[in-house]
Each structure stands twice: as C-alpha cells, then as structure tokens.
C-alpha cells in the first residue's frame, strides 16, 4: 500500500527562506498508525493529528535534502519550463528512492519514491515489499496529471485551491493507496473520468 502522497517544494525559492520546505498537498491513506500502535495509545485526537502532520513534514524535508544532493551531484542545470512543456519537464525530472527506517518517522520501515520537477517534489511513501516498478510508473503518471490539470508549470497557486482535483485523481489512479496494474485501455478509461471531472 502507499501510505501517503505529497507535493512539496524542493529547491530554494524566492518566496521561502533557505532550507524551508512547504507542503502544498498531502494525503495520508488509511487510518492513523498512532491509533493502532500500543505505545501511542495515550495520545488524544488533537495530538495524533499533530503527529501525523509532523511525520509528513519530516518526509518532505528528507526528500528536499535528497533532491538537493542529487541535483548537486549530477551537476545538471535546471531549465525553466513553461506550461505546455509538461512531458518535457517530466522527462527531465530527477528521480530517486530512499529508505526510511522503522520509527523514523513511520512505525515501520518505508520506501520513499520521489520525482523532482523544477521546484516541486512529488513523493510516494510505500511499504517496502510493494512493487516499486509499478509505484514508479504510477508516480510518474500522477505527476503528469497534476502538472497538466493544475497548470503547475506556471506561477500559480492553483494546487492550494484545487486540492479536490488531486483527491479525485488519487481516488481513480491510487484508490485508498492501492497501486493498480492498469494497461493503457484501463488507464484511458479512468483518465477520461478524471478529465471529465476537471472540466467542470
């Protein structure tokens, strides 16, 4: 299962101070793991929510530094892209995978897959036994849709005010965190539904 999907900033942006990382969208699938673990039983709902937000922030920061190091190591220059060049932006994107140890921050070990497109990072946190080939393909697909439907290559704040679109996208392509084996026909059918929703 995918535990969560995030969209967050990954590189120095003029709007933020250095090293600061802003989470633009986060969706945690399934019940809160604090509810079902013995050690965290005494937390009240308020604390649990805070804990979950902190965990998401930790993941975002880890990916932020992973992307920074990866871009530094590869030495490639970031080329500014404009709306319309989504496919190119995706091809050019940095990608990687990291391991999160048990307890840091999730109760069990997790694998974090990330895609760095310009100044945004798209991250999937999955359980380690998951099919990472499928997860990688799903992440790329999700990113492409987000970039296209939310015009993310432009300077907009659309993602903040159109989070319901991402929710619908996830409900079709990654329902409740389930990775799906979709051949191009099945994918087309789902994407048609998503496109119909976005058009409204």
């Amino acid at each position, binding site marked *: 299962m995918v535990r969560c999907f995030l969209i967050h900033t990954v590189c120095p942006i003029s*709007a933020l101070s250095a090293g600061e990382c802003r989470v633009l969208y986060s969706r945690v*699938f399934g019940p809160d793991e604090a509810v079902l673990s013995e050690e965290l039983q005494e937390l009240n709902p308020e604390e649990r929510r805070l804990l979950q937000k902190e965990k998401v922030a930790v993941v975002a920061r880890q990916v932020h530094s*992973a992307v920074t190091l990866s871009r530094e190591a590869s030495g490639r220059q970031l080329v500014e892209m404009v709306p319309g060049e989504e496919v190119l932006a995706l091809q050019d994107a940095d990608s990687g995978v990291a391991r999160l140890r048990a307890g840091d921050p999730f109760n069990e070990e997790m694998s974090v897959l990330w895609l760095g497109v310009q100044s945004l990072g798209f991250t999937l946190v999955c359980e*380690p*036994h998951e099919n990472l080939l499928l997860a990688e*393909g799903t992440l790329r697909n999700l990113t492409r849709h987000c970039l296209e439907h939310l015009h993310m290559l432009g300077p907009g704040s659309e993602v903040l005010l159109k989070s319901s679109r991402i929710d619908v996208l996830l409900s079709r392509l990654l*329902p409740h965190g389930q990775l799906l084996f979709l*051949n191009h026909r*099945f994918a087309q059918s789902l994407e048609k539904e998503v496109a119909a929703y976005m058009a409204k």
Partner: protein
Amino acid sequence: MYSHGSESLMKQAREIQEPELQKFYSRLVKLLQGKELGHETVDSLQRLHLILSATKYTRTLPSELRTRLLSLLSSPVEQLQVLSSAVLREMSPLSGEELNYIQENVGHLNSHTAALLLSKAGTRADLSSVCVQLLRGLDNRPSEAPAHSLMHTLPVLNTILTHSPECLTEDHITLLSKRLVDWLCYASTVQGGGASSGRFFTGPRSRQPVPIAELDGSSVSGNFFTVLCVGQGFTEDQWMNVYSFSMLHHWLLTYHSVSIGNSTIETDDRSEVDGSLVSMVSATSSSSRLLPPKERLREKAFQYCQRIIEQSDRKAQKKTDTDLQKACLVEAVCILDCVCVEDASLVFRTFPSIKGLFGRLSPDLSFARVLLPIAQFYLNHGEMAAVDCESVWKLVFGQFPAELFNDPFLAHELLRFLRLNLEKFQLGVPQYTHFFPNLLKFLAWDSPAVVDDFVDLLPSLVTPVTAVELLHTLLDLPCLSATLILQLRSTCLPISEQGGRGLLSLDAFRNPSFRGLFLFMLRGEAGSGDTIDRLSTLHDLLAEAADWPRVVHCAQTVPVLLHIYFSTVVMVADEKLLAHLILVMLERSSILLKIPTYVKEIHRVFSCHLLRMCKLWPSLVVDQSHELVEFAGISGNVYSKEELYTHVVWVLGEYLSVSCDSRCSVRLITSCFETLEAVLFEITSSGTPDGTVCPAPRVITTLMSALAKLASRSHDLIPRVSLFLSKLRTVTRSGSVAWCSDEEDLVAIVTRGEELWSLLKAPGVAQSVLTPSPHITTPQWHRDTNVAMPLQLRALTSLTHPQ
C-alpha cells in the same frame, strides 16, 4: 511554481482571525442551505479546506456546519462528496451520532465516505465495522447502486488488512477467497458495455459480443482474462480482476504466510518423497474444485501468474504496456515465490517457467529489476529443487553493480534484497563477501541515498579474509567515486572535448599507461591484491576531482563507515590481523585523496580506533613498536598529522612496558625514549620550521608524559627527563617562547612539566603512578575475596547481631 502569491495565500489561511472566520462559517452555512449548490459553494468549501489544513492545531466547526457537511457525503455530485470528505478528515473524530448518521443515510458506502471513515477510525472496532459494511455491500448490492460502485471495496479492505488483519474473521476470509478466485479466473472474456465499435452504423448486428485481445493484438482464444488483456470497454468483473490482482500479493502475504516451524517440517517431508510423484499428487486443475477456498485461491493465483509470465513475452503495441509487462512480471514472480513458500510441492511446477524467464531475461540489462525477484526465488527454493544458482549470483553481484551502479532504483532494490536475506547468504552463498568492491560502487556513486543500507550491510562484509583489502577500499572510496564518473563520461563524451570539465583526469583515464590503476579501482571482486603500489600517482591524477560534488558526498560518508568497520573488525580479527591493520593505518595516513577536511576526519577515526585496539590488546604496541617509533620519530608528523601523532605517542608511552608484553626490553624503551626526546627538543627549539605554525600544546604535553612514563620504567632515563623539564621551566620564565603563542597554553604546559618533574623525584612513586600494574587499572573488587562487598556485609552482620 510556488510564488509569493501562493505563500501569502498560505499565510492568510493560517492567520485568519476568529471573527472573520466565524463570518465565513455563517456565509458557508447559508450557501449550503440553498437548493442549488453552485460554483461559489464549491469555491468556499475549497477555501475552508485550505484554512483547516493549513494549521497544525485543529479548528472547531460550528455544529450546524458539520451536519451540513455530513449530508454532503451522500450528494450525487462527486465534487461535493470529495470536498466534504476532505474537510471532515481535517476535523476532530466523528461522534457516535455522526457515525450512525453515515451508516443510515449514506446508503451504499461511496469511496470518499469510506476514506473518511478509515481516516477517522479510532479503534480496531471502527475498522471492523467498516469492513463488515463493505462486505455486506459485496453480498447484496441494491439494484440502484451505480456501476463501478464495487471497485473501491478491495482497496479499502486492503488498507484495513494492512493495519489490522484481525479485523477480518475466518468467514470473511473464506468469502473473499471465493470471490477473488471468481474475479481472477472467471471474469468474462468479452468486451464490456460502453464499447464503441467505432463504426458509423450501430445496429443490432454490431452489438455482437466482441472478444478481448492480448497486448499484441492477437486473440485471447480460450484463456482467461488478466490485467494484460485489452478491449474497448470493460465489464465490472473485468475491473474486479484488475483490483484483485493488484492486491493479491498482499492478501497472500497476510493470510497465507506459514510459520517458520511448519515450513521446515514440510520441506523435510517433501524432500524424502520423489519430486515428480509429489507434483502429480498435488493439485491438478480437475481436482482443484474440491480444494478448500484458501488452497483453491493459491492454485488459481499460481495459474494466473503462469499466464502473466506467458503474456509478458508478447510484444506490446504501446510503451506504457511494455512497462506494465515488466511490473507484472515482478509481481507474478513474487506471488509465485509466496505460494511456493506456503506449499513446497508447487516448486517443481514453478521452476521450469522461472528458469525459462531467467534464461530469456538475463542477457538484457533493462530487465535487471525483474531479475531480482527471480534471484529471490532461486535463493528460497533453489536448494530444494537442486538447481545450480552460480550464474544467478554472478549476475546479481558481478554484473549488476558494475554496469548499473547509477540506477537509483536498482541500487535500492538490490541492497534491500541483500539486507533482507543476509542470513541466508551468510549460510548458503558465503562468497558474496568477495564482491564487496562491486557493492561499494553503489555507495561511491550515490552515498546519501544508500549509506543507510551500508550501515546495516558493512558488518557482514568484514571477515578476516577481506578485512585488509576492505580497509584500503573504504579509504579510497572517493577515488572510486571519481573513477566511476570518469568511466561514464568517457563512454558518453567524444574523444576530443573542448574546454570540458575534468579534462586532465579524463585524459589520464584514457591513457593506456595509467589503465591498470583505474582498472584496479573498477574491479568487481576482491582477492587480486589489497592495494596498488602507485596509489599516490592515482591520487595525483584525480586531484581535480576533490571538489566534484559526488566525490565530496562520498568522502563525507567514509568516516562513519570506518567507525563501523573498526567496531566490527575488533570482534572478528586476531592479534596478527590487528597488527597488520595498525600498519595500514600508519601507512595510509599520508596516502589519501586530498579533499579538504577528509584527511583530518580519517586521522581522527584512526586515532580513536588505534586507542581502542591497543587497549584491547596492549601487546600490539610492543609487537609493532618498530613502525610506531618510526612514525613518532618523524617530526613533520607533529604538524601534518597532529591528531594521529598524539595518539601514537600516547600508546607508546602507555603500553611500551614489560607488564604489557614480556618482550619489551630496556633497549627498546631506551630507543623509543631517545626518538621522542629528539622530536621534543626539535619542536621546542626556538627555530620552528619556516616559523609558520606552532606545534599543538597537546602534542608537547603528550610527549612529555610519554617520556616520563618511559623513564619511570628505566630509571637511568630519569635524569635526562628532569633536565629537560627544568630547562623548560627556565626558558618559559623568561617570557614568551617561539613555539607557543598562547599564554594559557604555555602555563598548562609548564604546569604539567612541573608535575612530572616533582613526580620523577621519587622514582618508586613515579613508577606506580605512571606505570600502574594491571590489578590497579582493572579493578575487580567484587571478585577479590578480601574486599568483596557481600563478604564484608556478612562479616559485619555476624559481628553486630547478637547470636
């Protein structure tokens, strides 16, 4: 992509004041009371979601607003379902009344409501009730339920069994096993409704059922439907086929895992029976109907995966489908591995296709990630099927790291494979440790991403056979990093490159006379020599690589790994090996790639572990005294290797004594004394080399202490030390000295000198203070019969208590 506008929007959402917020709430309630919920309502709901999710603390909604939002969960407009679910997810948990409301009014549980219930579940009981609700929906679906309403059932169930597998009862498991079998193997093989035939004239004739096709266009001809079948439209059970396969592996892992005890008994029994007989006796398709549901599901999963493997060989017409075929192969092999672990008789039926896959895919490196699950299958079942796995390990450890070190996903998966099966490898494939030069290529290329894995893997690679070569390789990891970069560059770039970066080192890489050096770096297996003679030549050639980011990242991880290495090696090495390692440390302290702070960090690690090793085996110092004294005699080391020098002098002073090793002679002590004395004289003379830098005060005090210690063991050396120390006092009394710039440091040095001088005035005392015998330094008072506490107490008690 994220502008100042976005940032200020976030700020506004976070800092909205209470009065304004209340106004917003009441406006929203009014909007929701209206008959038509239009664009403005949707927009406001979206803003509400932003406001609620922007803060870390939970805001409270007025109860009327909450009620209105709950009612939206069953709205026919999906957008409203989505938004209300998203907003309620950010709120405090649902009360009992609210949960009842949902159960009664939301009717058939839609996907977004299910998401809300899952996310707000407070106990396992809550999850169980969601589960029960869903399964009830599976059994008796109301006729007015929309098409595709079943589809989120399996994902939600998969989520529940991820977190709390006990929520499903035995009956549930049986029911679902049966349904899964139906969906997997008995889905319809004709195209679904809504299929546009693509023709202009749609009459009754064209409504004939069109069969589905394989990915390469050929017909499915009698086989069952799988995720690798295509059609214009799909029926519901074909969708369920996709969802079922997507969760099959996890289902089998959760409910079909066999305990370790059982499986060993099973394999023992099986190995006694003739393999072919067992495979005949085990489930054949005709008798599978008689199997209980779990076993039937296992059999059907087996058949599905075999079909997937066959289908993956077809040439798909679209690239996305080719990628899907790869992912399906990985999944199929993992599922087959899972069912074979559960039922060992399936191994004989499975191995032929796995072997065929291996043969087909191993020459093609683009299938490397598919070959890893195949390697796992060989590891788990190869012994039982008496299959030779040599070629598999050669591929996985020999070829993959050498050619695919820069694929981050392969690196992650290969290292994870190694980590998870470490014990099996140590028992069954112990030669994997010989591939450490290859495995370290992953680390050299992308240290930040994989260093965590190596923290776990490195200890197992440290064996008495590999220890020395491994140390050299770890120290030269930045060189390996640079070499890999050059290797990739030389294959990508043309021979002549104008003004390219790294021109000098690239030329050197392509130069035949230096070929051997680089080839040694790039070797895949250990055993061809610990290191090369011309190592410093290599370092010079790679000098410009010292500021390449990848090399710098790598250099930052080496000290951490060296700590792990040394901590492990003291547990597996004997004294002889440790002696050899001390020599390596002394030798390599000057042969390191010149990256700023790298050399200093390595020296620090060396110092720390030299100390530990000598503490564990004090006789090492006498054993290696020749090299250690030689190192201490080079006065240049005081300045260039201050940390290491200090520690070498300290261990010489501390452990060069008869009580540590009986081979320590007076002559040895004297020669060491003279060497240290000479250096001390030199660095405290007024003419420092070039008058540049002063020796660190700690070096001076350590030298003085060491000399005093040595003198306390050979009393005729005492006058020489005392003379020096009194001279020191005189010189410093006259004011500042050239070899010490800081006044406080000078005072400390002089104070130490005076302490030592007064101590040495009484040689017997000096000896017991500076060379204490072992029973003082390692007290074991609790074992000493005279001082053991219990005995004392018993004695006291018997004395004080009246009989």
